[in-house]
């Protein structure tokens, strides 16, 4: 039925003004397609709310009077020492030390978003640089960079991450966040770089590259003016899909205690702490797990939406009825 209503809007009245054809950039066209994708738009809204939730974390702490690292033994723990569940004072309950889960989840959202986005962006910048150099310059440089990426992909990332965390013994939150970002980016850029390299290898054979060369353009100019703009669609999609992976990566590291330094809460470390007592306090797992799921799912759906919008040739409904 819905296809009929869609058709109706396409029927143009006979006396309608002739539509003026207007040139639109590829990005404008993509945005038009993106807006029609309800799932992707919904994901964008969810993520926007998540950003607000994270950005206003100090406000939640102020309103509830519960800073993220303060314990409230009198109000948050019952007489037997068990944390209280969701209620009037603690909307999403308290943890076993008597801290407000809502406030901690908001601060955790900050960590997840910042680390996820920063690591994904860093990984894509390195990945694009390495991929373009390897693919475009070729020769020995290509061999070296391609093998380097293979080696990176072969490293056991958790072991290396744990080793780095124990080696550096970082005490400040900022330093531990930075190290986490660098570690995630280091282990993500190779997969990214490989895809970009493949793209560049096919772009390099295009006639417009040859045309630029015949005009006298140097390698740097060709890479910046002719190669990079043709990679932007790919890069956008890959980066948006790398963000949820990085968020999960961060959660994993923090869960294992080698990510973001305590007492700064992170969804991963909240899951780690909550797993000790989840039989009596389910909300300690449910809240961070739900937020993690919602965020990564939204980012994934958003990434899919961006891909569909940027590549209209792809069959977006394949496999779906």
């Amino acid at each position: 039925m819905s296809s009929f209503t869609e058709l109706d809007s396409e029927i143009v009245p006979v006396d309608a003004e002739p539509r003026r054809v207007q040139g639109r950039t590829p990005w404008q066209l993509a945005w038009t397609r993106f807006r029609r994708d309800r799932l992707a738009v919904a994901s964008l809204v969810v993520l926007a709310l998540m950003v607000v939730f994270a950005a206003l974390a100090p406000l939640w702490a102020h309103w509830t009077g519960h800073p993220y690292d303060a314990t409230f033994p009198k109000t948050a723990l019952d007489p037997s020492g068990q944390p209280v569940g969701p209620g009037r004072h603690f909307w999403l309950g308290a943890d076993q030390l008597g801290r407000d889960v809502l406030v901690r989840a908001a601060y955790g959202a900050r960590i997840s978003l910042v680390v996820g986005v920063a690591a994904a962006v860093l990984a894509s910048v390195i990945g694009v640089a390495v991929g373009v150099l390897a693919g475009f310059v070729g020769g020995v440089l290509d061999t070296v960079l391609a093998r380097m990426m293979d080696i990176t992909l072969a490293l056991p990332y958790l072991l290396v991450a744990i080793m780095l965390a124990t080696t550096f013994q970082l005490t400040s939150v900022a330093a531990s966040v930075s190290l986490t970002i660098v570690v995630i980016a280091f282990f993500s850029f190779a997969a990214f770089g490989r895809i970009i390299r493949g793209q560049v290898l096919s772009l390099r054979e295009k006639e417009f590259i040859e045309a630029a060369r015949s005009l006298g353009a140097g390698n740097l100019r060709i890479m910046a003016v002719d190669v990079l703009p043709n990679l932007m669609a790919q890069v956008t999609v890959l980066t948006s899909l790398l963000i949820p992976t990085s968020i999960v990566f961060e959660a994993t590291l923090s869960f294992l205690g080698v990510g973001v330094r305590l007492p700064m809460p992170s969804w991963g470390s909240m899951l780690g702490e909550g797993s000790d007592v989840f039989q009596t306090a389910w909300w300690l797992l449910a809240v961070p797990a739900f937020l993690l799921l919602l965020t990564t799912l939204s980012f994934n759906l958003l990434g899919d939406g961006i891909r569909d919008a940027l590549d209209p040739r792809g069959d977006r409904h394949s496999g779906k009825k």
Partner: protein
Amino acid sequence: MSELPEGLHALPEGLHAATARPAEAAQDDVLVSAEGVVKYFPIKQGIVFKKEVARVHAVDGVDLRVRRGETLGIVGESGSGKSTLARCITGLHPVTSGRILFEGTDITKLSKSGLKAFRRDVQMIFQDPYGSLNPRRRVGSIIGDPFAIHNIADGADRKKRVQELMELVGLNPEHYNRFPAEFSGGQRQRIGVARALALKPKLIVCDEPVSALDVSIQAQVINLLKDLQDELGLTYIFIAHDLSVVRYVSDRVGVMYLGRIGESAAAEELYERPRHPYSAALLSAASIADPDEAERAERIVLIGDVPSPIDPPSGCRFHPRCPKAQERCVAEEPALVVRDGDAADHLTACHFPVEPGEVLAHEHAGISQVSTEPELPEVEQ
């Protein structure tokens, strides 16, 4: 042809001064010449330590001269080395050996800055009007690229010059901010022509500039190129596999086969009196518009495929498929020289050139040719 650019009559002034030359240039005013140009592409095997196992003899000893203001057509089948030769002449491919002289300077030995200066004088028009324009850039930016690369004009000046060029090639200057995808194939090829003209080159190498276009659009683009040549005194090297197109645009024509030039002559001379058996076969395969004449025409059908350029035949490269081949053709390579009774610029690389009026065998397996292939028209049209 209704789309012929009106802008031709309102030429931007700068274009006249630098390049316009009298069409009747001195007979021996050679603009570019190739001497024994060879281009091999190595075939490598191995993952880390690559070893050259074979080489493709794409261009294998080509001599040619192009006079200022004329059009040299180059015809040949796919894989005959036409495009590689074009890329050697424009300096896009380094040659394996041989010299390419442009106004007396050997461009194969140019330094990086010398090459950049050379690129201002020699431009290229590409085959694929879709692949040769960056889809992510606006037309103004594409045509303005030469100015940006050579730091010639920028800002409002560049825009003005680009719009003059757009007018010159028959595009609407108001479409300055459009993307290539918003243009038709013929219009896109005009964009490519405008880009090639931007630096006021002396030589334009056209690599099958119309073979990707509709026939009606082909005529428009070819006429545009001819008009621009008259106006700007351009010299063209025009590569195509469409024989009638080449005949229409060229002053002289060279026929390529497996990396060599088999015959070269003034266009009419070559089309009326081909001396090389391959030229004769190639021309006999061209379609003839008049059905009565087409019925009378004798078609020479060659047997077998073009041999692999990895391991070209000895002696004359055409001998395995040539109806007139003899032992001498296997052993000795014929030189590209004037044959008996020909005009001074009619060169043929054949020991036994076709005599005027001679009828070649319809189907001839040539010498030492073992082939069970069904007969196929070998010429791409």
